[in-house]
């Protein structure tokens, strides 16, 4: 669609292998042992033939499960690692933020730490002089800059580090999961800066787990799985594929743990209905969702535990209900943020043990961000539920 866009980062057929640490020679004895048996190296392939381009002005998201190789990819782009094979071309200045406040020294003042961190990130003293006031202002730490960093609260330290990151100006900025810092007001500010980046056409590469961020800010995204590209392109599609991938992985996990999903000894059946008793899987935030469970009770159990997870695997809520007859209906007020969810139901016997495996309920979707009945909702309302019938 954009033929004349300039390439900011070009990644060509990158392979990265690590030699696993148990065979590393940390001492002469180990070295001697390893030299005798030379060929017992364990090589771990982390990236296996990854190629893509990031164009100037892209807000590029890299997503993937833990251990998929996405952070390794970011470190390769940042120049911290060298690829085993392949080439990475970076066109323009690049500032990586793999961790915030790299090199911070608690014995130095806030002022000195800003200059130290800035220098390590590749800024000259002149450039830091130009950025300094903005950084201090953004961090809201003006009166404390002459104090030693060790006298800062951890929140203040994070704020200072993040302000340096966010106020750094360079052609390309790299961020690794750094958004998960600070209180809500500060996060708000950071998101504003991201919006500004997007509006200005700043080239950003972001590694994240948070699909909301990907959907909201990214112009393009790539999903890395097992060291390969699983999907690349539109952020919504990539985010959806990521969520599906997670669900598959969760099911596989449970099978590995010998927990049977869906088809368990419980003979459970889960259905969601709305207030009009229509079977549906789409709800607005704050809507009442009726979870109807019928079961044959082939084995003896006293309670059912119903857990709700986000599709990304994050646990949202859970509660335990006693059971008597073969039917149960629970009403849940769905104060969940927009996104896809699913439920897992487990049976508990009289001795508090889980029996009969786990049943995976169908997926459901929350379609709006804010509940209709609570306009000022900030996501902190506990989930309400009510047992309708046994």
């Amino acid at each position, binding site marked *: 669609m954009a033929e004349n866009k300039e390439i900011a980062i070009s990644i060509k057929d990158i392979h990265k292998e690590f030699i696993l640490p148990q065979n590393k020679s940390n001492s002469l004895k180990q*070295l001697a042992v390893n030299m005798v048996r030379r060929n017992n190296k364990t090589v771990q392939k982390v990236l296996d033939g990854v190629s893509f381009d990031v164009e100037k002005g892209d807000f590029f998201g890299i997503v993937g499960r833990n251990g998929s190789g996405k952070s390794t990819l970011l470190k390769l782009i940042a120049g911290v690692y060298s690829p085993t094979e392949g080439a990475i071309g970076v066109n323009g200045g690049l500032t990586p933020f793999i961790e915030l406040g790299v090199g911070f020294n608690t014995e130095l003042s806030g002022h000195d730490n800003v200059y130290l961190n800035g*220098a390590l990130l590749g*800024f*000259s003293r002149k450039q830091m002089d130009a950025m300094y006031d903005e950084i201090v202002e953004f961090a809201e730490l003006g009166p404390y800059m002459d104090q030693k960093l060790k006298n800062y609260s951890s929140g203040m330290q994070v704020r200072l580090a993040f302000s340096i990151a966010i106020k750094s100006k360079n052609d390309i900025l790299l961020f690794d999961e750094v958004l998960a810092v600070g209180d809500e007001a500060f996060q708000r500010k950071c998101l504003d800066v991201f919006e500004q980046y997007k509006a200005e056409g700043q080239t950003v590469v972001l590694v994240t787990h948070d699909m909301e961020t990907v959907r909201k800010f990214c112009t393009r995204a790539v999903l890395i799985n097992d060291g390969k590209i699983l999907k690349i392109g539109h952020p919504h599609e990539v985010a959806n594929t990521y969520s599906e991938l997670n669900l598959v992985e969760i099911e596989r996990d449970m099978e590995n743990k010998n927990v049977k999903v869906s088809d368990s000894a419980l003979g459970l059946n889960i259905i969601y209905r709305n207030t009009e008793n229509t079977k549906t899987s789409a709800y607005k935030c704050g809507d009442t969702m009726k979870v109807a469970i019928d079961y044959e009770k082939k084995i003896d159990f006293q309670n059912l535990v119903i857990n709700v997870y986000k599709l990304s695997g994050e646990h949202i809520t859970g509660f335990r209900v006693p059971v008597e007859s073969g039917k149960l209906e629970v009403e849940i007020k769905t104060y969940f943020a927009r996104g896809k969810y699913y439920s897992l139901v487990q049976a508990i016997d009289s001795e508090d043990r889980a029996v009969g495996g786990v049943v995976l309920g169908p997926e459901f979707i929350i379609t709006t961000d804010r509940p209709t009945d609570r306009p000022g909702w900030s996501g902190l309302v506990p989930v309400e539920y009510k047992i309708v019938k046994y």
Partner: protein
Amino acid sequence: MRRYFNVKNRAILREMVATDFKVRYQGSVLGYFWAILKPLFMFAVLYILFTYIAPIGKDVPHYGVGLLLGIVLWNFFSETTMIGASSVVAHGDLIRKISIPRYLVVISSSVSALINLGLSLIVVFIFTLINGITPNWSWLLLIPIILQLYALSLGMAFILATAYVKFRDITYIWEVLLQAGFYASAIIVPMKSVPIELRDWFFMNPIVQIVQDARNALVPHETNITIWNTIDNPIIRLIPLIMIVIICVVGFVYFKRRSKYFAEDI
């Protein structure tokens, strides 16, 4: 050289050295004086020992000045190589998270040692003047001599720092070698007391050549023993210098080749 010390790298180097300078003696009352006091105390102990108790330096002119200078130069060598050896691992957080040129970590530790050396040399000069030696143009020779020592220390530090990433025994081995080297480098024992047939071998140690040259530059005297008036063969004379060049080249090449993998090896 331009490429290695551009604006960005100079900024990094300055900040790292400044941090080290500010932090090192934090909270101590005498602060940076310790950098000078340490070699002075060591000098005092050795001076008393070897002029009064076991007087091996008794008939060496200005033994004290030579001893102090030797200790100061040796301290620089031992500090640069010891701190340099662990510098890459000690800055592991930087190396694993940002892509600063790796050699800056080693160089910054050597610059800190160089500052210490400068401070200590001031004390040496004062002590020399007190000893009734008048300033001499030959003092300027100390500049190329110290540069030679710096090159040797830095080359060695690069080798050790690279090896230390993989083999953590290196610092212990080096510490033992340094201890032995201190006695084998004619810091305490004056060259005069070394048997004539062994002197040629002593001078094959670059430190001996450097220390003797420095002593001769500080207090010129025709009885001073240097490599230049001990060994006649012009090629053998150059062996210590050639060794330094080899150590530097090996150090830089080895470091450069391995530094790509520091981030994953630490």
